[in-house]
């Protein structure tokens, strides 16, 4: 799950980057409206965490621009102004959720998961396919009831594939979801993660369509 954090305070921004990564997300941070617009225009994000008071304008403008472009990426607003009128303005501006500063990191991460889930039209915080079950909150994988230890990246690859089990995900798409801008990507990173996953959850769980990408194999 790749998340864009738009926050100009360096300490909070750093905390969100590290904290949300611990919760299983890939986080990119920008500090201005202009950078946020640029980032949202070029990369796909599962969700945006948006501060309202930014040095070059209001986060609400970023939000309105996003919605005007027809982009439905879920947005969680962060702001120091949590009067009812401000909350209404935020939600009416197209935000999916709203958190007043200071907030709880776990709550923020749960809310992000919730808006992402809602955007994907799912009702539960877990993904299931065949005997494989992913708990997005606790980042655990169980196969036929037995818990399988996986790395954070492996979990993210599996989650990306299981969101729409029958849909093909290209290697580039998976890389985009797995890695932020600053991270070095090894050319065969995705292949390695898929290889490791097959070893853990079953050789035939993930199907390779040569030259196109990967998808979950339909349960027999």
């Amino acid at each position, binding site marked *: 799950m790749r998340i864009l954090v738009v926050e100009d305070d360096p300490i909070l921004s750093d905390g969100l980057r*590290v904290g949300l990564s*611990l919760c299983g997300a890939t986080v990119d941070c920008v500090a201005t409206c202009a950078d946020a617009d640029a980032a949202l225009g070029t990369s796909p994000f599962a969700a945006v965490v948006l501060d309202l008071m930014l040095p070059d304008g209001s986060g609400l403008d970023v939000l309105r621009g996003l919605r005007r472009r027809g982009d439905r990426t879920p947005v969680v607003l962060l702001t120091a102004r949590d009067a009812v009128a401000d909350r209404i303005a935020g939600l009416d501006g197209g935000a999916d959720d709203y958190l007043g500063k200071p907030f709880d990191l776990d709550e923020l991460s749960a809310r992000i998961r919730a808006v992402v889930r809602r955007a994907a039209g799912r009702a539960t915080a877990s993904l299931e396919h065949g005997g494989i079950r992913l708990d997005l909150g606790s980042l655990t994988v169980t196969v036929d009831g037995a818990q399988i230890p996986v790395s954070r990246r492996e979990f993210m690859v599996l989650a990306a594939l299981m969101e729409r089990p029958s849909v093909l995900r290209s290697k580039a798409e998976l890389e985009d979801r797995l890695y932020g801008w600053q991270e070095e990507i090894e050319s065969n990173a995705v292949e390695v993660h898929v290889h490791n996953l097959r070893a853990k959850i079953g050789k035939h769980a993930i199907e390779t369509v040569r030259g196109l990408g990967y998808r979950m194999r339909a349960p027999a």
Partner: protein
Amino acid sequence: MSSLRARLFAILLLATGLIWLSAVAWIYLGSKREVEQVLDTRLQEAARMVGSLVGRVGNVGAAGAPVAFAPPGGYERQLSCQIWSLDGRMVARSSGAPERRLTDAPAGFSEREVDGETWRVFTVEDAEKGVRVMVGDRLGLRERLVADLIMGLVTPALLVVPLLGMLLWASLGRGLRPLRLMARDLARRDADDMSAIDAGRAPAEVRPLTDALNALFLKVEAARRHEREVTAFAAHELRTPLAGLKTQAQVAMAARDPDVAKAALGQILAAVDRTTRLVRQLLDAARLDAEADGPTVTEIDVGALVTETVESMRAPDGIVTVIDPALRGFTMRGDPESLRLAVRNLHENAVQHMRTGTVEWGRRQDGAGFYARDEGPGIPEEEIALVTTRFYRGRHRSDAGSGLGLTIAEAASRRSGARLRLRNRTDRSGLQAEIVWT
């Protein structure tokens, strides 16, 4: 009087009353003159008439029994007539005429008091017949005549007064309606409704009032908006570092990797430093705002104050502070506490905007003040006027800034009787902040 209506009513009633009174006085005087003329003419005519009727003295009645006759004239007993022989004997008198001689004047008009009443008498002397005819009337009667005339005028007027009053009151109410409507509109307003009053409907006399009110509304609205903005900015500046602290603390607790936990703890320390500084600045700003008693203005050794203040602050690595020797012994009159605050905040501002470089403190060429010069990015020209606004943080914000430093420096300079002037350096990038006594 607090009610405009009552006030106007009183004034109008008083004015009407005065006009009426003067009209009455005029009519009184005019009528009196007229009546006197008419009555005098009547006296003359009556005297002549009686004179022509009287025969020789001998023919008129027996001695000692004067003939009584009804006098001419419309009002009963108004006129009295006496006929005297030239040798001083009363020949005749009208009924009700006094027995004492009405006048001693030989002919013409005269006035005299007889039996306690003032008489106006006209005398005709007929030497041929040997008689003197006197016809007189009482002045009191004349007065009563005029008084009756005036009463006839005033009585209906007095009866009309209440009607006039009612009419005035009602007309005033109607005339003042626009004012009342405006007052009602204002009274109905919500406390935070600052929209302008519709001046088009107001009468010209009230226009200055509505204009003043509208101007006031605008000012109050602007002040409230500013207040709201400051509150919003303050909330942001206070809560964001707290949010950072909490997030970093949670990261430190959750991280299994000791390096991640350590980095988070480092961030927590930085956040605490920043928040500490923010709190200090907020308190400084509040103190400058609230300082009720005037500044204690004394002679200040600016050089010593700058040196002492700057040296008490821990300089980060890579920042060099230079104090121009020309500042030594430079004295100015000001409030030492405020000036120290200004220097401290200017120095902090300079240091924050540079990773490495020199902050130079020096004396202005003209000796009117001193300056701090840094090698940071400076301030975009269009933001220079705004940066002293509370919580304003421009594009070249420093990570640790709160948007209060320059605000405090400016307010503190003012308390020392000086001004803060900001301008970008022309020799290289950087800001020159001057404290100038004007």
